[in-house]
């Protein structure tokens, strides 16, 4: 495989105004230095296993250059991921809201320290300019911060004290739905994924992500951040592979309570929803008229929505009589 173009090497030119200190400090590799390449693996239950199937598929950069072999996860891997998520769910949901907020904020902290690496990968995966890739990374970090802040507020915005017409104390509180399957946006491999991942997480759900099939590498790097942050093992699980193979399995899994169909290929959408209906899964769809390819994830107003958190919350209403 040819040498990869990276944000660091590109921005070594004097014209790049936005180059960070770190990028300027990075020297181009010596000609005789052999690059240590990364093996991209799955992320299940806090570990980085290879797919049990031993399969892989070739991932290319946006310009068609082959980049890496990604794991082609199997249905067995998916079941393992759902099991890990189910196991992790109660502990995560029972954390205090403030604690969940801090854990997600820490993801932002750790991403901040790896900005250039993420930018490199976004350039490579999405064919973005360096400046745009950097913008995407910064917004991804800020998006974690925005959603993290909701952790201890969403219950106050969506919850209610209900003035029933009788002597009862009556209140409604939101609770996490459970295990959420996310079919990641296909086009926006990092910012799109973060924007769809943070809402169910901040609500207290455990998540199984099917990564962008054509651009899976940035999210694998994100899992390295998650693994070294304080997100408990199993709360986020990420699979790479073929959506046509994995989406039907995810939709049919009875232990998945909700599914985000944003990144489901158009030809699979109806069958996915048909299958999901069998276990009354909550289905989170793209807003009407929105396409995956055209959606502007840099638009904060469009991608920072409390409704996206609410999609993975159940409202619980509690009654108690008042009396002496």
């Amino acid at each position, binding site marked *: 495989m040819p040498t990869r173009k990276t944000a660091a090497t590109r921005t070594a030119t004097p014209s790049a105004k936005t180059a960070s200190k770190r990028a300027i400090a990075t020297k181009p590799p010596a000609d005789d230095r052999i690059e240590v390449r990364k093996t991209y693996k799955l992320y299940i239950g806090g570990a980085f296993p290879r797919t049990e199937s031993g399969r892989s598929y070739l991932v290319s950069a946006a310009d068609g250059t082959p980049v890496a072999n990604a794991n082609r996860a199997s249905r067995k891997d998916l079941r393992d991921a759902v099991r890990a998520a189910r196991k992790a769910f109660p502990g995560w949901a029972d954390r205090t809201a403030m604690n969940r907020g801090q854990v997600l904020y820490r993801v932002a902290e750790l991403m901040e320290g790896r900005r250039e690496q993420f930018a490199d990968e976004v350039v490579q995966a999405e064919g973005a300019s360096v400046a745009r890739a950097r913008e995407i990374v910064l917004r991804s970090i800020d998006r974690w911060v925005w959603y993290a802040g909701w952790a201890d507020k969403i219950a106050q915005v*969506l919850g*209610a004290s*209900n*003035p*029933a*017409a*009788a*002597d*009862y104390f*009556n209140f*409604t509180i939101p609770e996490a739905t459970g295990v959420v399957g996310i079919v990641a946006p296909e086009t926006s491999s990092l910012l799109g994924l973060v924007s769809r991942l943070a809402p169910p997480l901040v609500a207290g759900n455990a998540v199984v992500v099917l990564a962008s099939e054509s651009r899976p590498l940035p999210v694998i790097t994100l899992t390295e951040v998650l693994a070294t942050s304080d997100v408990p093992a199993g709360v986020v699980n990420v699979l790479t592979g073929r959506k046509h193979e994995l989406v039907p399995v995810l939709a049919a899994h009875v232990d998945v*309570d909700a599914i985000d169909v944003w990144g489901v290929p158009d030809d699979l*959408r*109806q*069958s*996915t*929803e*048909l299958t*999901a*209906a*069998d*276990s*009354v899964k*909550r289905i989170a*769809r793209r807003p*009407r008229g929105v396409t995956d390819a055209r959606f502007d994830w840099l638009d904060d*107003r*469009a991608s920072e929505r409390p*409704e996206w958190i*609410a999609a993975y919350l*159940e*409202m*619980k*209403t*509690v*009654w*108690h*009589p008042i*009396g002496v």
Partner: protein
Amino acid sequence: MPQMTTEETRLRPWTGDRAPAGWGLGDGQAIPWEYAPAPESRDIVTLKSRYGLFIDGREVPSSDGGVFSSVNPATEEVIAEVSRATPADVDRAIRAARRAQKNRWGSLPGRERAKYLFRIARLLQERSREFAVLETMDSGKPIKESRDVDVPLAAAHFWYYAGWADKLEYLFPGRVARPLGVAAQVIPWNFPLLMLAWKIAPALAAGNTVVLKPASTTPLSALLFAEVCRQADLPPGVVNIVPGPSDIGMHLVSHPGVDKVAFTGSTGVGKLIYKAIAGTDKAITLELGGKAANIVFEDAALDQAVEGIVNGIYFNQGEVCCAGSRLLVQESIADTIIEKLKDRLSTIRVGDPLDKNTDVGAINSRAQLEKITELVQAGVDEGADLYQPTCDLPDRGYFFRPTLFTNVAQSHRIAREEIFGPVLSVLTFRTPDEAVEKANNTPYGLSAGVWTEKGSRILWMVRKLRAGVVWANTFNRFDPTSPFGGYKESGFGREGGMHGLHAYVRLEDR
């Protein structure tokens, strides 16, 4: 049967030296005390021999002239013929709803929409006795429930949502709430008018128009409601009502001309309806079945708990999606509770739904009676112990004795399947963890009950129970301000409260 207005009566301890009428003696035998019949007069209801569909503000026959009969389940008499909507009628109703939404209702200022809803609430209050009697005749539910629960709550629902119609901007700060358009609504037979109110009130408040299909065994109160819409001068097409069989319901929800689907009914049918909208942009809420656990701890106020258990499962003949059909009782008090329950069952009055003393009325239909009978037989066959009080049942009509099963295992069908009848399965537990484990061991998650005098345990149980409504030291309470709906396979979306409006709006940026 304790409800709303009778709350105080039931909480007052009995201190007399002689048991009041019908009070059990402790051996499962009631004092032989006859209640004089106290029938509610039917004169207030003028039954038409035939009811049409309600489309575009007018009562019309179905396009093929077809009719079906509505039967009084307490007498098995046909009480009216009702036009049976055809797919062409449904199409017409949807077109009328679309026109009304686009040209009138959707652009009407919220404060004007509100006034129509207030009018409807007032009309329901004014005609409440008429609605109650008709509802009881058509559905078989006791008059004291239709009179004290169904009809007042239906009116209260319109009242509550009326006030929201011009205040939506305070509900969704920073965003503009737009109506979705035309709502297709399919409702069940257990609370015909109340479910209509739950569906129509929030839809209209948010600026949607509706096409509603009532259940085929209980269409009459919906058609009387059509008359209320006309009395209120509601613009034509805002509410359309198309009675018919289930395939008409499927035609309605599958129709490309509807933007939103709302269904209350069984989980089986709910899944079919969910599938019917797969791959579309339609919004949907589902309120489906349940198998609620009613959990009694040893420190509970036992007499109140017994009343709550009885109310939980025998209210409306147990034909309630949130019925407390599984009693989980702590082992140390199981014998006491079961004995008290048997006593209490001996005083339940089963019979003429129009009699004001009746606690348990008629089962809604022959088909439902057969389903209950089959599941009770399965309970016996699988080895549970059956108890039924020795009360007389009327000679005609679909009646079923209040039933109690003890020695029930979690694997029994009567502990897993929704019976939708007056059948209680008693299971036991030792620790709070075990209670939670058993309560949550079901694909359903609609409601749950907790009985204990310890506050912190109530709140701990509330957190652990995977159910959309938790009644603590009470059961089967409903209020328009209070969101209702399920976890898991009991559906999603909420009806009631401000959450009920979320299902009927599309949010746009300012």
